[in-house]
């Protein structure tokens, strides 16, 4: 009959009307009382005592809770994490970048030379405004000093603000993504969890730090 295709279409749309919504409301979504209690994991009385204005706001549906889309641990974020104590200033990352956006200036080092000579890094600028986040610089680093970050909220009003200077790289909170670093995935590291900050390179590097016994064995007993 003539209209059967049209009716089938109408019923498919109706089925989707009654189904779930696919939107992720980033960054905040407004919830009512039940959603607020589920998010904060409190009883209504605790919620009223701890945040009274938010309680009343949630009664009218105005309480905001953050919501983020799901992110894989290998996500190449728009961020870089750099561990200075492993960087030797070899500039392989700068050489391998297809766009040439990493700028490195070094001076001969005054540090102790435990694993080969290294340089002091004066300038290490990465220009995110032109970066395509391909990760070839991370692939090129032989010492696992440079990692891709996992953040993506780096919008800025000026183009100069999109260049990451070396001080920011030194001081930033490091939550690297596990891209091209299979040793981090073996340790089940997830950058988006609550306490995911890496403070010591040895937690995520490819080489294990030798234990005190091994060091004693090597430097004392082998003499």
């Amino acid at each position, binding site marked *: 009959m003539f209209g059967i295709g049209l009716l089938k279409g109408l019923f498919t749309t109706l089925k989707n009307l009654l*189904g779930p919504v696919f939107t992720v409301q980033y960054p905040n979504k407004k919830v009512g009382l039940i959603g607020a209690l589920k998010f904060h994991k409190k009883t209504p009385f605790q919620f009223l005592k701890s945040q009274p204005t938010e309680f009343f706001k949630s009664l009218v549906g105005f309480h905001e809770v953050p919501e983020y889309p799901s992110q894989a641990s290998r996500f190449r974020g728009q961020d870089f994490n750099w561990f200075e104590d492993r960087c030797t200033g070899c500039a392989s990352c700068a050489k391998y970048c297809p766009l040439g956006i990493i700028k490195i200036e070094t001076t001969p080092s005054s540090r102790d030379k435990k694993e080969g000579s290294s340089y002091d890094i004066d300038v290490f600028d990465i220009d995110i405004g032109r970066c395509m986040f391909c990760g070839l610089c991370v692939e090129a680093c032989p010492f696992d000093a440079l990692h891709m970050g996992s953040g993506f909220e780096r919008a800025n009003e000026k183009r100069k603000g999109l260049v990451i200077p070396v001080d920011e790289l030194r001081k930033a909170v490091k939550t690297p993504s596990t891209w091209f670093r299979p040793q981090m995935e073996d340790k089940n590291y997830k950058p988006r969890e609550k306490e995911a900050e890496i403070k010591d390179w040895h937690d995520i590097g490819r080489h294990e730090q030798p234990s005190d016994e091994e060091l004693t064995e090597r430097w004392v007993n082998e003499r």
Partner: protein
Amino acid sequence: MGPVRESFIFEFLYCHLSLEASCSSVRVLNIAFIPENLSWISFILTAFFWIFVFINAALVGVLALIWGERRLIGKFQARLGPNRWGPLGLFTPVADAIKVMFKEDIEPTLSDKLIYVLAPILMVVPVFMIFPVIPYGAKTFLTNISVGVVFVLAITSINSLSVLMAGWASGNRFAIIGGIRAVAMLLSYEIPMGISAAGVVIVAGSLSLSEVVNNQVIPNAIFQPLGFITFLVASTAELNRSPFDITEAESELVAGYMTDYSSMKFGLFYLGEFMATIASSAIIVTFYFSGWRGPTFIPSEIWFLAKWIGVIAIFIWFRATFPRLRIDQIMSLAWKGLFELSLINILVLALMIAIWPDPSGMQLLLMTLINWVVFFLSIYIFGKILSPNLTGNKIKKRSVIYGLD
């Protein structure tokens, strides 16, 4: 003053203002202060008050429809609609209105000034005249004119004139082409609408809208499905909505009649289209869904409102589901499809009412059954005989074949 005084809500306010003796039974509060020989003052005051109320209610309804349509289409598409401005996005129509008002008002130099300014006004203003005529409840209506059906159909066809004026006055050759195509579509769909409405009048026995509702024992949507479907499709075309929205489509190349309008003039076109949607839904509820009738444990105004929202949701459902038809297919559908179907409907109805002039009980059920059989038979025949040539192509359901190894 006769037909107007039948309106309960009008009479209520009139009597509270005037000291007329015949009003004493209606007065609840004692605020009457206008003497009897000056009763025309109370008439004018009451009229202005109710006009004010109805116009504002219509405009608030348009705001609600803008919000509701965008949220509902979002839900059909598994996403949320606008949800940032205000709780649940309720301030979005306000943001829309402010945006439209603040745009620059560009006037093309080649335009015909008077008609250019008049066209959007003509789109919006006549639609306000439909709202007073419709019965919203058992005794809630503003006026009850004795030719309600014809009045309503006449008002809904004024927008064709407005479209033609808009297309002509823009002075732009593509706007004229777009306007003429739109007017051709609008005029072609007036005829199935009128003939289906005639089917409703045959059953009701009178042209007045209150009589149409009072005489609908079975809702006309079930009683005459063929008439209902033709009226619904013709209404969708009259409103320039999907699947007949060639005038609003950017991907159809030829710019529509609205292109040269900006700022508030465009806002008026937009407003007029939404108000026409609300008005057409109210008409469909009155004609085909038996208006305010329903079980009496809920007041009749609430029934009317619920049915009204349901019919608007049906229009939004059509918009979310169907793609667009081409202009020659739209004309073929009107003249080779809906026209014949509405004629068959009116023929069968007229024969049945001639045989059984005052149907009740078993006769009604028998008539309903005959109407449904005619409905399925005519859609089947229409599909088989007319549709292969209807749209200019021979359409057949098809599937792929697979390559042999």
